[in-house]
């Protein structure tokens, strides 16, 4: 059942929120031992929240649009009084004294958090293998990865533990696991959703977004969490438009551009075929499909792997053992820093901190960080040109379907290439989403719908058409 249907029934008094939450907790109980999607189950708090919703329904008080809908949030999202690990040992024992803005807004909408989802440590990874608490397994094939870094959220939704979840997307971390697991995953326009309470990886790229079994649920969750937050200076100072109301608008007359640079070399032909099939579905629904070229995208991956690690190297400096989390004692302060960070961070996090530190260092700044920022501008310009020819763009989400556990862990560069289709929109700050569109060799494939900044409505109505026509 969809989240929206569940909420409608709870509001109407036809179902108890408590029963809905119990079903969700039972599903987690039965599946999570194998999948390791959820790091922390917040059963008591969830039951209390559900009971409160039921009381309000009984009293005729208003409950929100997501009343009684259970969900998990990625474990880099602060939850007051509850461990928030970011999939890392270094936050051992830390309990934030506040809720992230998205957590407060979900509660206001009536949603009930039942757990915290596994992730690549500090959202650095594309497979959820970089979690300090063990990898999350793919729901169809346990020897495969669910994608990442929001792998836990994707698997929780794909396996019915919860109907919706929150992930975070810095270079594709919502969309790629959504594609691998066959769920909907949305990265909103940068600034659409408050980052307050999201533990930062790369602040200029991070964005929280929904994952769901269907497009309408994703739109409903996005509407619940989006909108201006004065606590985040980069938050867009305007309300979120009514996305859900436009899901039936269709694509008649919409110009859809298939991104040439993301359809050739390095892309599994079976994946590219699904994108072309999606384009046909849109054309059949009245869209005008064209091919667009954005040459600057060829440099986007390199630019991302300068900018994101540079910001990360600074963002992660606060994990020093002084005020919270892990502290490995030593006789001097610098030694304490070194031992805490050596033991607290995993290999991929250390790699990116070193990359970023290097890229920002005196004598290298211009060659790396400054150049990457110029590329970022070129990517923005490239998209701007493409959006003169098209309303929305279409591309693969990832070059392949879900790969095997350990298949890419020895070679970081191959792992990084997984983000080639998703990174450009993060650099541009644009919205993009993954919509399940059939399978290849038995594994789910998502296609990516991209849109200009703030054009979530066009993105979602296109996604809704693909959802309706997605059967193979």
């Amino acid at each position: 059942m969809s989240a929206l249907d569940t909420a409608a029934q709870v509001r109407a008094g036809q179902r108890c929120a408590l029963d809905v939450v119990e079903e969700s907790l039972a599903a987690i109980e039965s599946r999570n031992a194998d999948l390791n999607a959820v790091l922390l189950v917040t059963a008591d708090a969830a039951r209390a929240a559900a009971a409160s919703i039921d009381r309000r329904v009984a009293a005729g008080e208003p409950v929100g649009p997501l009343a009684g809908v259970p969900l998990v949030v990625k474990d880099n999202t602060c939850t007051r009084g509850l461990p928030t690990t970011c999939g890392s040992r270094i936050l051992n024992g830390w309990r934030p004294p506040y809720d992230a803005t998205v957590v407060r807004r979900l509660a206001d909408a009536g949603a009930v958090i039942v757990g915290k989802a596994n992730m690549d440590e500090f959202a650095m990874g594309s497979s959820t293998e970089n979690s300090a608490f063990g990898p999350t397994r793919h729901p169809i094939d346990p020897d495969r990865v669910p994608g990442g870094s929001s792998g836990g959220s994707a698997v929780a939704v794909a396996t019915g533990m919860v109907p919706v979840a929150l992930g975070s997307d810095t270079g594709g971390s919502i969309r790629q696991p959504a594609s691998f697991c066959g769920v909907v995953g949305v990265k909103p326009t940068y600034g659409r959703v408050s980052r307050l309470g999201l533990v930062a990886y790369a602040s200029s790229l991070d964005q929280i977004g929904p994952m769901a079994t269907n497009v309408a649920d994703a739109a409903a969750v996005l509407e619940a969490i989006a909108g201006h937050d004065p606590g985040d200076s980069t938050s867009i100072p305007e309300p979120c438009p009514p996305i859900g109301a436009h899901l039936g608008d269709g694509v008649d007359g919409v110009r859809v551009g298939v991104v040439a640079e993301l359809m050739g070399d390095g892309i599994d032909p079976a994946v590219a075929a699904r994108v072309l099939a999606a384009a046909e579905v849109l054309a059949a629904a009245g869209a005008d499909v064209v091919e667009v070229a954005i040459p600057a995208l060829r440099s986007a991956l390199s630019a991302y792997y300068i900018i994101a690690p540079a910001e990360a190297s600074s963002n992660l400096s606060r994990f020093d053992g002084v005020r919270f989390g892990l502290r490995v004692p030593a006789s001097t302060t610098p030694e304490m820093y070194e031992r805490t960070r050596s033991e607290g961070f995993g290999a991929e996090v250390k790699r990116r901190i070193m990359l970023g530190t290097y890229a920002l260092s005196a004598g290298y700044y211009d060659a790396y960080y400054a150049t990457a920022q110029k590329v970022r501008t070129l990517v923005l310009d490239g998209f701007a040109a493409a959006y003169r020819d098209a309303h929305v763009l279409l591309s693969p989400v990832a070059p392949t379907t879900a790969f095997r556990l350990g298949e890419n862990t020895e070679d970081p560069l191959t792992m990084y290439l997984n983000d080639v289709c998703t990174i450009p929109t993060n650099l541009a700050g644009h919205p993009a989403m993954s919509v399940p569109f059939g399978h290849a060799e038995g594994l789910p494939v998502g296609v990516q719908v991209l849109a200009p900044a703030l054009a979530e409505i066009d993105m979602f109505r296109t996604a809704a058409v693909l959802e309706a026509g997605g059967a193979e």
Partner: protein
Amino acid sequence: MSEWETVIGLEVHVELSTATKLFSGSPNHFGGEPNTNIDPVTLGLPGALPVLNRSAVELAIRAGLALGCTVQPSVFARKNYFYPDMPKGFQISQYDRPINVDGSIELPGGTVIGIERAHLEEDTGKSTHVGSGGTRIHDADYSLVDFNRAGVPLLEIVSRPDLRSAEDAKAYVSELRAVLVTVGASDGKMEEGSLRVDCNVSVRRPGAPLGTRCEVKNVNSLRSLGRAIDYEARRQIDLIESGEAVSQETRHWNDDTGRTQTLRSKEEATDYRYFPEPDLVEVDPDPAWIEEIRSSLPSLPRERRHRLVDELGADPLSAAIVVERGLDRLVFDAVAAGGDAARALNHARNNVADGEADRLDAAGFASLTTMEADGALTATQAKTVLAELIAEGGDPAEIAARHGFQAMDTSELDALLDSLIEAHPDDWAKFCAGEQKVMGFFVGQVMKATRGQADGKVVTALLMGRRP
């Protein structure tokens, strides 16, 4: 040291007088139990985000405009380094695009010192190093950190290397402090750390290119500033004169030993890896707001000094002292009430203590100066009356009468002088022969005979008039 020139540039950190911190709602005030004025932003907790305090920007602009700076769109950057009292592992500061640039400050003596920039940044916390070895981190057994100060808004004001002496440097800091206090940007309390000074010192032969500079830290008072500069300049001159080179480094001033010592060399300097702070947006103040702030600025010390000189004929030193002590208003009010400008300035400069101006009513002060100018009171008497006026208020004429003060008239003094000359013929002969010091003897005798009521200047004039 005449064949050497000392070149000094100062970096002054000033705490802005905002109610709350630069990027969070925690109170900004000195003192308090450690770690009470804190919040997630101050502590750099994961997920916390900075939100810029508008009133800190306003005070920065006020200060910038008062220093004649151009206010421009600015960008915050991260200055990355590890230190226990730096919660995030980086300090949010302004780097290549500061809010204020290209200003200047005019010292009371008229020298103009360039100001390169005045930018916003957050303060760090405060470490206390405890242990048998001393009070620096390397010698400590353990360290305590108080984050109350972390995140307090600072304005870092960087001068150009235009200063040439310790005296100039002290005058610069005093003037800067006066400007900042006047516009309400800071309380300027050096003893509470509201105003902190780092100095860059180098020496050269006049006309030669700039020498290698050393930065001296831990200068906590004007007196230390002067001593540190003099010591550091001497040290560098001695090095060069003995054939050695000055190496660029950061040095620590030790107030107890009166010396500077190496803190870190240029090679050990931290690479701060500055980059734009992605959690904040560009600060682009509305030009109308800037003009509004400009028009709300009070009269600045320089303008007030100039007014005293131009309108009341004050000498520059008196003007500087009177303005520094905030007594120019009183002087102008007294003159407006018909008082004598020269005597009002003189009293304000010499005979009114700090904080006493409020207890002095301009009309009473004015009539005191008039009585003095008219010869109804001698300078000494006027001083006595003034002290009472300040302490108890009242009417200067009545106070003078109560003390029995009355100016002696010249004929009485002439008669007194006649008898003194007759009684001391030898001394008079010496005086007539040009022995100036004998003058003091006669003046003293007159004062003794009149119990101090004679006007010393008048007596002197009479004596000079009688000398053949």
